[in-house]
C-alpha cells in the first residue's frame, strides 16, 4: 500500500511538493478544457484533471476513491465521453464566439465573484478544532472502513443508488434506441428517386472527393469544370464537422507553379 | 337554535345544499328555499340574542373542536356583545337582501340557483368570521369570504364586472397576505412563550417587544384598513359597488366591510394594545381624511351607486375614528355605527337599485321628479338618505354623535374637523334627492312603477329598524357597552373626566 499521506493537519513536505506540482497542472488542464476549440482535446484535458484528482484522493488517505476515480471516471466515464464524441462528434469543433449577447461578460463577472467570494469564505472559515486525519478511521484499511459504513449505515442509500444505476442504464438504452418508422429504402427505390427528382444534375451520382483537384484526400472537394469546388463531393459528416478544406490552393488555375519552375 | 353557533353556521350551508340539489329550472323554488333558510337563521340569531347575558363580558356560546392538532388549530367560536351585534345585523340583512333582490340573479353568467348558493355560503362565513375565536379560523374565513363575493360580483354584476371583481379580489388578498404574515408571526411568538397556539385569548397574553408588536399590528391593520376601507386604500370599493348587484353591494358594504372595523377592535386592539396606541395618531388622521374626503367625493359623483359607495367611505371614517378614540363613547358609538350603517346603506342600495333597474340607468341626472311618479320609492330613498346624513331620530345619529362626543373628549381637533362632515353629508344626500326625486318629472321617468308589495315588505323592516333604534337604541347599547368597556379597560384607558374647562 502506497502511503502518500503522511500526517494529519499540516501536510509535510512530500505531500506539499506533490500538491504544488500537481495543483497548477490540474488548474491549467481545467482551464484548457474550457478554452480549447475541439471537444476531443477538452476530453483529453478532462481526463488528465481526473487523474490528478485521483492522485489527490490517494494523497488524502482515500485510496479506494482514488482507484475508483481512475477506474470509473477516467476509465469508464471518460471513455464513454470519447465514444460519444466519435459517434456524434460532427459538431465537435466548438467556435468560441459567443452567440447570446452579453452572456460571456456576465458569466465571467459572476464566476469571478462566485469564485472569489467562495475562496475568501474558505479563507475566513475556521474549524474551531484541529484537523483529525484519517489514520484512526483507516486503521483496518480504507476499503474495509468504507465497506463497513456502506453496508451498515448507508445500506439503504446504497441499494437505492444501485436501483438508480440500473434504471439509468435501461433509460439510456431506451433513449438511444432508434426505432425505424419507415422501411429502409432499397437501392432500387433510391435510384428511382434520383431519376424522378426535379433535376437530373446528380443522376449519375455525386462527384467523389478530390476529383480534378490537386489533392485526393477525402476532405478535399472535387472541382467542377469551371474550377470551383463542389461542396457536395464531401461526406456530409466531414462537412458538418467543418473538416472540409476550402483552401484555394487546390483549385485549378491557382496552382502554385513555383515548384515546377524549380524543376 | 339551541344556542349553538356551529349549528347557526351550518344552517345556511344546509340550505345551500338543498338549493344545489334542486333542478336548474325551478328558479322560484330556489329563491324560496334561500329566503326561508335566511329567515330561519335570522330567527335563530334573534333567539340567541335573547339568551345572551348582556352584562357578562366573557365570550358566550363558546364551542371548541380540534381541527388541525399538529399546529394547535381549533375550530373555536364564541361571541361577545360586539360580535353578537354584528352577527345579528348580518343575519337580519340576509333575508332582506334575498327578498329585495328577487330578480337580481337573472342575466348573470351562471344560473339563478348558483346565485343563492353563493349567498347562503356567504352567510355562513359572515357568521363564522365574527364568531371565530381562533385566529387561524378567522383568517381562513376572512379569505374564503372573498370567493363567493368574487363570483357574485364577477358573475352577476353589471358593467365592468370582471375587472371590478378582480380588483376587489387582489386588493383584499394583498391585505390578507400581510395579515397571514402577522398571524404566522404571532404563532411563532406563542411557540417561544409556552406552546404554539392560535387561540385569541392566549395570544393576547403574549409579551412582545414594541418593534415586533408594531410590525405585527401593521400586518393586521392594513388588511382591515383595506377591508374597511380607509383612505387611501379605498379605491376598490366604488368600482366593486358600481359593478355589483344591489344585494351584493349590501352584503359587501354592509357586512363584509364591517369585518375590517370589527377586526380592528377584536384583533388590533386586543392583540396589540401598545402598538395600537403608537399608531393611533396616524389612524385618526386617516379616519378624518376618510370622513371629509369620502364626503367630497360623494358630492362629486354623477353615478348613484358610486355616490353611495363614497358615503360609506365617509361613514367608515367615523367608525374607525370612534374605535381609536379609546373612549367608551367612541367605542360603543363605533360598534353601534357598524350596525346602523349596515341598515342605512342597505336601504340606500336597495332603493337605489330599484330606481336604477326601473330606469335602466344609474346616472343621477337621468332621474327627475320621482316623488310625483313613485311616491313610496321616493320616500324610501329619502328616509334612507336622512339616515345616511344622520338626522336625529334616525339610528345613525345616535352612533355618529357618540363617536363625535367620544372623540372630542380626547381628540377635540379631530372631532371638530369630522363634524364638518355632517354639513357635507347634507350636501351629498340632498343633491341626489333634489336631482332624482324633486323637480319636474323628466322624460323617461313618467311611467316608472312604484314599489310592489314584495319590495315594500323588504324595505319596511329596514326603515322600521332605522327609526326605532334612532329613538330607542338602549337594547343594543346595553349589549355593546360591556364589550366596549371591556376593550377600553384592557387597553388601560379610562374615559377623560370632565375638565371644567381647565385645559
Amino acid at each position, binding site marked *: 500500500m502506497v502511503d502518500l499521506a503522511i500526517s*494529519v*493537519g*499540516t*501536510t*509535510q513536505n512530500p*505531500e506539499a511538493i506533490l*500538491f*504544488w506540482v500537481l*495543483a497548477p497542472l*490540474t*488548474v491549467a488542464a*481545467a*482551464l484548457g*478544457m*474550457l478554452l480549447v476549440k475541439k*471537444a476531443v482535446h*477538452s*476530453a483529453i484535458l*478532462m481526463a488528465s484533471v481526473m487523474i490528478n*484528482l485521483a492522485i489527490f484522493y490517494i494523497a*488524502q*488517505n*482515500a485510496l479506494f*476513491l482514488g482507484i475508483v476515480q481512475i477506474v*470509473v*471516471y477516467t476509465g469508464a*466515464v471518460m471513455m*464513454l*465521453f470519447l465514444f*460519444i464524441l466519435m459517434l*456524434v462528434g*460532427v*459538431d*465537435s469543433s*466548438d*467556435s468560441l464566439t*459567443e452567440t447570446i449577447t452579453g452572456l460571456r461578460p456576465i*458569466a465571467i463577472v459572476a464566476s469571478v465573484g462566485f*469564485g472569489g467570494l*467562495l475562496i475568501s469564505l474558505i*479563507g475566513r472559515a475556521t*474549524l474551531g478544532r484541529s*484537523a*483529525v486525519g*484519517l489514520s*484512526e*478511521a483507516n486503521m483496518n484499511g*480504507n476499503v474495509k*472502513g468504507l465497506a463497513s459504513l456502506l453496508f451498515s449505515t448507508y445500506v439503504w442509500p446504497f441499494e437505492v*443508488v444501485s436501483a*438508480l*444505476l440500473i434504471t*439509468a*442504464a435501461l*433509460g*439510456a438504452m431506451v*433513449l*438511444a434506441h*432508434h426505432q425505424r418508422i419507415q422501411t429502409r429504402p432499397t437501392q432500387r427505390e433510391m435510384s428511382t428517386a434520383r431519376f424522378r427528382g426535379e433535376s437530373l444534375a446528380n443522376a449519375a451520382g455525386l462527384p467523389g472527393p478530390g476529383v480534378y483537384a490537386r489533392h485526393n484526400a477525402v476532405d478535399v472537394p472535387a472541382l467542377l469544370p469551371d474550377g470551383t469546388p463542389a461542396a457536395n463531393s464531401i461526406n456530409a459528416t466531414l462537412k*458538418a464537422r467543418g473538416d472540409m478544406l476550402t483552401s484555394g490552393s487546390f483549385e485549378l488555375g491557382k496552382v502554385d507553379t513555383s515548384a515546377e519552375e524549380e524543376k | 337554535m339551541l344556542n349553538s353557533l356551529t349549528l347557526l353556521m351550518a344552517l345556511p350551508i344546509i340550505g345551500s345544499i338543498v338549493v344545489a340539489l334542486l333542478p336548474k329550472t325551478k328558479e322560484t323554488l330556489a329563491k324560496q328555499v334561500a329566503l326561508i333558510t335566511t329567515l330561519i337563521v335570522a330567527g335563530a340569531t334573534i333567539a340567541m340574542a335573547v339568551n345572551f347575558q348582556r352584562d357578562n363580558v366573557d365570550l358566550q356560546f363558546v364551542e371548541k373542536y380540534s381541527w388541525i392538532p399538529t399546529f394547535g388549530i381549533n375550530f373555536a367560536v364564541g361571541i361577545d356583545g360586539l360580535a353578537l351585534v354584528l352577527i345579528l345585523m348580518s343575519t337580519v340583512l340576509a333575508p332582506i337582501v334575498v327578498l329585495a333582490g328577487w330578480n337580481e340573479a337573472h342575466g348573470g353568467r351562471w344560473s339563478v340557483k348558483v346565485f343563492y348558493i353563493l349567498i347562503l355560503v356567504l352567510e355562513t362565513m359572515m357568521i363564522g368570521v365574527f364568531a371565530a375565536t381562533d385566529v387561524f379560523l378567522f383568517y381562513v374565513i376572512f379569505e374564503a369570504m372573498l370567493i363567493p363575493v368574487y363570483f357574485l360580483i364577477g358573475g352577476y354584476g353589471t358593467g365592468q364586472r370582471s375587472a371590478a371583481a378582480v380588483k376587489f379580489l387582489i386588493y383584499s388578498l394583498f391585505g390578507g397576505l400581510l395579515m397571514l404574515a402577522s398571524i404566522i408571526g404571532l404563532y411563532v411568538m406563542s411557540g417561544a412563550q409556552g406552546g404554539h397556539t392560535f387561540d385569541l385569548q392566549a395570544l393576547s397574553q403574549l409579551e412582545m417587544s414594541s418593534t415586533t408588536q408594531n410590525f405585527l399590528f401593521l400586518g393586521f391593520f392594513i388588511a382591515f384598513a383595506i377591508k374597511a376601507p380607509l383612505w387611501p386604500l379605498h379605491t376598490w370599493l366604488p368600482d366593486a359597488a358600481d359593478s355589483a348587484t344591489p344585494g351584493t353591494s349590501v352584503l359587501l358594504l354592509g357586512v363584509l366591510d364591517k369585518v375590517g372595523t370589527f377586526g380592528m377592535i377584536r384583533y388590533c386592539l386586543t392583540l396589540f394594545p401598545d402598538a395600537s396606541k403608537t399608531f393611533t395618531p396616524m389612524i385618526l388622521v386617516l379616519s378624518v381624511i376618510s370622513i371629509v374626503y369620502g364626503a367630497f367625493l360623494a358630492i362629486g359623483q354623477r353615478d348613484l351607486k358610486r355616490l353611495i359607495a363614497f358615503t360609506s367611505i365617509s361613514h367608515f371614517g367615523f367608525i374607525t375614528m370612534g374605535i381609536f378614540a379609546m373612549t367608551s363613547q367612541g367605542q360603543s358609538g363605533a360598534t353601534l355605527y357598524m350596525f346602523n350603517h349596515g341598515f342605512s346603506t342597505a336601504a340606500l342600495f336597495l332603493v337605489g337599485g330599484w330606481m336604477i333597474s326601473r330606469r335602466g340607468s344609474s346616472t343621477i341626472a337621468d332621474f327627475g321628479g320621482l316623488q310625483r311618479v313613485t311616491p313610496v320609492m321616493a320616500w324610501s330613498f329619502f328616509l334612507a338618505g336622512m339616515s345616511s346624513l344622520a338626522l336625529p331620530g334616525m339610528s345613525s345619529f345616535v352612533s355618529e354623535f357618540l363617536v363625535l362626543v367620544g372623540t372630542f373628549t380626547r381628540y377635540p381637533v379631530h372631532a371638530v374637523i369630522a363634524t364638518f362632515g355632517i354639513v357635507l353629508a347634507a350636501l351629498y344626500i340632498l343633491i341626489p334627492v333634489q336631482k332624482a326625486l324633486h323637480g319636474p318629472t323628466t322624460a323617461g321617468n313618467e311611467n316608472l312603477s312604484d314599489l310592489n308589495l314584495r319590495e315594500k315588505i323588504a324595505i319596511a323592516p329596514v326603515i322600521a329598524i332605522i327609526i326605532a333604534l334612532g329613538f330607542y337604541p338602549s337594547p343594543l347599547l346595553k349589549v355593546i357597552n360591556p364589550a366596549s368597556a371591556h376593550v377600553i379597560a384592557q387597553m388601560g384607558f379610562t374615559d377623560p373626566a370632565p375638565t371644567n374647562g381647565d385645559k
Partner: protein
Amino acid sequence: MDAANYLYLSALLFTIGAVGVVVRRNAIVVFMCIELMLNAANLAFVTFSRINGDLNGQVVAFFTMVVAACEVVVGLAIIVTIYRSRRSASVDDASLLKR
C-alpha cells in the same frame, strides 16, 4: 501545507466548471464541465473527510461518483437522441424551453 489548500483548489475547479457550463456550446463539453464540478465537490468531500477523521465524507463522494455515472449515461443518451433528430449537439439550438 494546510489541508485547506485542497479546498481552495476545489473551489477553483468548481468555478472553472461553472464557467464552462455557461460559456461552452457543445453539449458534450458542457457535460464534461458538469463532471468537473462534481469532481471538485468530491475533492472537497474527501478533504473534509480527512479533516474530520471520518469516512462518511468519502462515502458521500462515492455516491456522488455513482450518481455522476448515471447522469453521464442518461445525459449522453439524450445528446445522442437530440443529435439524431437535429444533427447538432449545440445547446443553443435546443431553445425549445421557451416555446
